[in-house]
């Protein structure tokens, strides 16, 4: 799959940078 295809598929989720940082914080906290 090309990057263009991946970006097109990801667009539908409408995520923000804050969503990403929160999800990573949560994931790394859970892993500790």
């Amino acid at each position: 799959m090309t990057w263009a295809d991946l970006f097109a598929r990801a667009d539908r989720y409408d995520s923000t940078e804050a969503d990403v940082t929160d999800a990573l914080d949560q994931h790394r906290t859970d892993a500790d």
Partner: protein
Amino acid sequence: MPTEPSPARVTADADVLAADLLVGGPSRAALDHVREHSWMTLVASTPLLDDAAAVIRTLADDELAQAWRDRLEPECELVSHPAEDHPALASAYRGGAMHLLTLDESLQSASAGAALRGRVETSPRHPSAFDTLFDAESLYREVVGGEYPGPDRDPRA
């Protein structure tokens, strides 16, 4: 044994990897510089890619996370590090990445940067700072030599 540091070697923390896919903006602009130049290297580790994939699964779905990993992993240079290490810091250190792209303000802070520079030759910075400072012509002259021929890869391929 860590790899010799190079300004053409870049590590992106899991937040930047996931934001590249899911958000675009500065993270995508920064990683486009890596994607469109074959002489740039993205350094990562399995735990770092695991973290990014977990974020993608949380915010999107398993299928997209797997497709992203299938596309990205062959293009990365994977390094190993102890499980207790911070995946991005350890990848940058062990893989000789002089640039560490992160959205984590605590890693970008002056004190964190100074502490890191005392031990490793890695500069943590926001992807927008890397995008602004990236100078392909001078970097090409430094790491490859000769006149910069322009991007040699399609960043959307």
